[in-house]
């Protein structure tokens, strides 16, 4: 019995060691770079370069041509949104006017004599003028906001275009230099390394520029605050006028 057990143990040990050696061998083999294949890649780099050049250039060109299209769509969206808001505001104002007229009609019906009617009409006039004034201020604030916003956005877009152009120039320049170096018979490994470094630098610069450009929200925020400030003032002025007119009316009508 003991003999059988020790036999089993020995066999297990042998299997374990062999397996371990095999696995280690595989791992070792995988971990090793194949100097032959890497060298071949670098050696053929100049032969592969035109293909690399063409591929990258095609991508850059496609994105460049799409750039203006995207910009146009963006401005169109802004214009559509603005038109929608204009229409909604106009429709709302019309409904408010109708509602207000209905209110006044009822108040006027309650007037007992001509004097009271005149008082109500005067109140109506005062309110109408106050509303008109408020709306004018609001409309002007919106106009100014939109104008300032368009200018700021256009200016930002110019800067973005400039940074993108710098990136494109740097990328294409690096690719052309690599081609020239290949034509001049420089060491492929050196050409490859230089190209890699320059392309990486171009991308990093673009990314940095993107970080540094003013965020859109930061651009809009001061403009929005200015607009809202003007609107707030207009509404406050209106409410004050309304309160005064209302108190006068109530006093004269004995309400």
């Amino acid at each position, binding site marked *: 019995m003991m003999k059988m057990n020790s036999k089993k143990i020995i066999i297990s040990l042998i299997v374990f060691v062999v397996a371990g050696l095999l696995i280690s061998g595989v791992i070792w083999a995988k971990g090793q770079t194949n100097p032959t294949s890497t060298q071949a890649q670098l050696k053929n780099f100049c032969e592969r370069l035109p293909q*690399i050049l063409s591929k*990258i250039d095609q*991508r*850059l060109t496609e*994105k460049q041509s799409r750039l203006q299209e*995207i*910009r146009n769509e963006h401005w169109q969206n*802004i214009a559509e*949104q603005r038109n929608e*808001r204009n229409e*909604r505001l106009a*429709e*709302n104002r019309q*409904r*408010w006017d*109708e*509602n*207000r007229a209905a*209110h*006044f009609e*009822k*108040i006027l*019906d*309650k007037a007992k004599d001509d004097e009271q009617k005149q008082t109500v009409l005067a109140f109506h006039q005062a309110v109408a003028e106050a*509303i008109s004034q*408020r*709306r004018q201020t*609001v409309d002007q*604030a*919106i106009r100014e*906001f939109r104008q300032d*916003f368009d200018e700021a956005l256009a200016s930002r877009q110019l800067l*973005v275009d400039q*940074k*993108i152009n710098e990136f494109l120039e740097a990328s294409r320049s690096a690719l052309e230099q690599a081609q020239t170096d290949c034509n001049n018979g420089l060491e492929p490994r050196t050409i490859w390394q230089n*190209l*890699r*470094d320059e*392309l990486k630098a171009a*991308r990093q610069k*673009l*990314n940095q*520029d*993107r970080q540094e*450009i003013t*965020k*859109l929200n930061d651009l*809009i925020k001061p403009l*929005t605050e200015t*607009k*809202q400030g003007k609107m*707030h003032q207009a*509404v406050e002025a209106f*409410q004050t006028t*309304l*309160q005064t007119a*209302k108190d006068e*009316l*109530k006093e004269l009508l004995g*309400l």
Partner: protein
Amino acid sequence: MNSKNQKIEEIFEQAVKLLRDGKTPKQVLDLWPEAETELEDLLKLTNILKEQKEFFEPKQELLKTILNQLEKIDVAEKELSPYLIKNKGRFSIINNLLNQIHNLMTLRWKIAFSLIVIVVGLGLYYQFGLEKPQYVIGLDNQKILLSEPSADVNKMAEALNQEASIEQSLTAEENALLIDIDSSMMSDFGQSYDENEL
């Protein structure tokens, strides 16, 4: 007056019968000299209708077809269409046409047609007749009901203040959801290639 008309009717009926039996119009008129004028007019009219008989009366085959298509009705029904009742001496093309249309319409169709008329009527009333509640469009396209017009000055003032607030909030919405296209494009350009894949 009524009794005179009644007498004329009775005389007319008898006169028509005699004409059918082969008497001449003159012979018939001689029998009732007191009603000669009225009777002569009626008989002339009858003569005209008789001459235009084919125009007014449908052919037998058509009558049979129409009758077969009609649902059977209870002849003891009190409610008979006035067009089915023989009008006394008066007959028109329009009446005849209406009569034929009426005969073709079964009860089911009458009910369906009535329902359609009621539904359409209600729809038109709802659309144009009823006073719909007034509203304005607020933020996120929400409908905000306007106050019911009243003679209360305070309520009117509240409505005006609400108007000012809504207007202000709507204009604050401008460009709130603007996407930073420029930043996205710069990022996109940066992914045109990967130098590690050279």
